[in-house]
């Protein structure tokens, strides 16, 4: 800001074309026209002072640092080995180095700009009027009457049929806009039976085998007591997300746990759901559909890691803690003539999270 020789006398009409007026005078006049009063405006450091020169050096240094860091970023981006390998190579520093150089470049730029604006520009306090309630009641009335007049001109009140017919005409148009979206998206959930059946439902009278994740069918000898394995329906694409409700946990219980489990089974009428000491429960939590599969082989609890529902395997997988309210459905299993596990039938309860019309 250039030094100023004369301030305009308060209250006087300011002449913008006054040759005496400085640029600051004009600026302040402009501000006044916008109801801004600059009440305090002074440089923080005397021009040419030691402090000012030091600040300029700081800002210059920051800007140069930005350039340096940005150049380093480019150099690293181009020449640093970046292709990932599992060994302890230099490539693991690629992303951190990019981050540091980019970060330094941007931070130095930011702080350079900020120091410039904060320290080298004059300090200022300005006061602006808010102009609230400046529009008078009169103005409001004029606008209101204008709008009402326009409504009268349209004559909706005198010729009500116009409005009604317009609404009647527009309503279907709105529906036309909505129809393709709703109609295209909507899908009957009950049609495919996806909610009630899983891949274990016998197909063409043939019982479905329990297979492992690599497709091999499973024999009782494949799991030791105290072991568990995730099994899938032995159908085409059984081990895929197409059968997201089918994954099942097959558990080989220890003798004493198996006895308890059988007793519990008998109580709910699942007399023949187990085969030997083997028991199979749906892996899909009845609460929110996560795979409940943290099997504790000593306590026989099954924990779901999403919301900590706990199921007691030896008591028909009854929920004993957490937000789940329904036990895990049990899959009735047996062993076929070739010695592989098969599902006797589909699950007899609904698998997966609950819903309104669950039978």
């Amino acid at each position, binding site marked *: 800001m250039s030094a100023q020789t004369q301030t305009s006398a308060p209250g006087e009409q300011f002449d913008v074309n006054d040759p005496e007026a400085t640029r600051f005078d004009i600026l302040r006049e402009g501000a006044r026209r916008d109801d801004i009063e600059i009440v305090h405006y002074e440089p923080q450091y005397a021009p040419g002072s030691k402090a000012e020169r030091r600040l300029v050096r700081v800002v210059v240094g920051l800007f140069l640092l930005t350039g340096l860091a940005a150049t380093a970023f480019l150099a690293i981006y181009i020449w640093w080995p970046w292709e990932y390998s599992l060994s302890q190579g230099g490539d693991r520093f690629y992303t951190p180095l990019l981050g540091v150089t980019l970060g330094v470049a941007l931070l130095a730029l930011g702080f350079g700009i900020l120091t410039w604006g904060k320290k080298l520009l004059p300090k200022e306090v300005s006061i602006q009027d808010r102009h609230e309630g400046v529009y008078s009641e009169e103005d409001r009335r004029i606008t209101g009457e204008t709008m009402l007049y326009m409504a009268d001109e349209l004559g909706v009140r005198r010729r009500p049929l116009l409005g009604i017919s317009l609404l009647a005409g527009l309503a279907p148009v709105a529906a036309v806009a909505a129809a393709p979206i709703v109609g295209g998206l909507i899908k009957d959930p009950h049609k495919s039976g996806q909610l009630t059946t899983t891949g274990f439902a016998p197909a063409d009278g043939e019982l479905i085998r329990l297979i492992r*994740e690599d497709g*091999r069918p499973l024999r009782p000898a494949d799991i030791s007591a105290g072991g568990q394995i995730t099994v899938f329906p032995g159908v085409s*694409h059984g081990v895929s997300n197409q059968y997201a409700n089918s994954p099942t946990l097959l558990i080989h219980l220890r003798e004493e746990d198996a006895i308890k489990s059988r007793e519990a089974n008998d109580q709910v009428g699942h007399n023949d759901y187990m085969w030997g000491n083997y028991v199979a429960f749906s892996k899909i939590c009845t609460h929110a559909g996560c795979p409940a599969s943290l099997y504790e082989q000593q306590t026989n609890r099954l924990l779901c*890691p999403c919301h900590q529902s706990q199921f007691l395997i030896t008591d028909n997988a009854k929920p004993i803690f957490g937000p789940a309210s329904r036990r895990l459905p049990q899959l009735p299993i047996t062993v076929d003539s070739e010695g592989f596990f098969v599902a006797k039938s589909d699950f007899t309860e609904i698998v997966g999270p609950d819903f309104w019309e669950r039978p």
Partner: protein
Amino acid sequence: MTSDNDRRGGLLARLRRGRSAAPSRGRRRLGAAVRLIAALTLAGGAYTLFAPGVQAQENPPLTGAAAEGKALFDVSCVTCHGRNAQGVEDRGPSLIGVGAASVDFQVSSGRMPMARQEAQAGRKPPVFTDEQTRQLAQYVQELGGGPVVPEGDLSRGADLAVGGELYRINCSQCHAFSGGGGALSSGKYAPSLMPASDRQIYAAMLSGPQNMPVFGDNQLSPQEKADIIAYIQQSLQNTQDPGGFNLGRYGPSTEGVAIFLVGIVALVFAALWIAGKS
């Protein structure tokens, strides 16, 4: 097998196509079978040699290493596991039939001997040397047989991708995707896999310590175990995180802490400076 192939949904086939460098599944399975039979023969042989002795007399004849192991046992373990490892009620279970694998895991990871009775024995610096651990294991093995961890490189010829697939289906639910472990019900927990050695991982799968389910050789073949061990050691235990500091790999919870403690705090300080009067 052909009908099974049809039922596989193509997953295995694709997995196999990916592992061109690794030996074919068939050959590996053969190798696994051979190793299994060898292990069984050894264990069975040991059993037939010593089992009658167990029944016949109070102090069965022990091999040299096992005798050393018994001496160690009688000093450090007998309080809880009782004379001849038959267990003491409410203190320690019987060790007859748990096998050398279990001893290997519990002693080499420092879980045994326990410092005090608690819900779950935690990892500590081991009390016994490798040699002593082997002697103890040999003793328990000769008492009642059980699974044994094979010698040699336990992740030989492993396929990382298959190991990862098996890890995610069998292990990650408790030990977490990144191997950091996790909570189980009522104060129990699945430990972090970061400090686990290949023998310890193998032994844990074989013996199912504490609440961990058993993954016997019938369920996960030695080759599959090798795949899992390779995945844990080369991928999860590898500290080479390509994206910088890994925040403990605790997932979104530490990321959320970081955005407030680092991001918001740094920017609030910046804002304080920007709007400051000085």
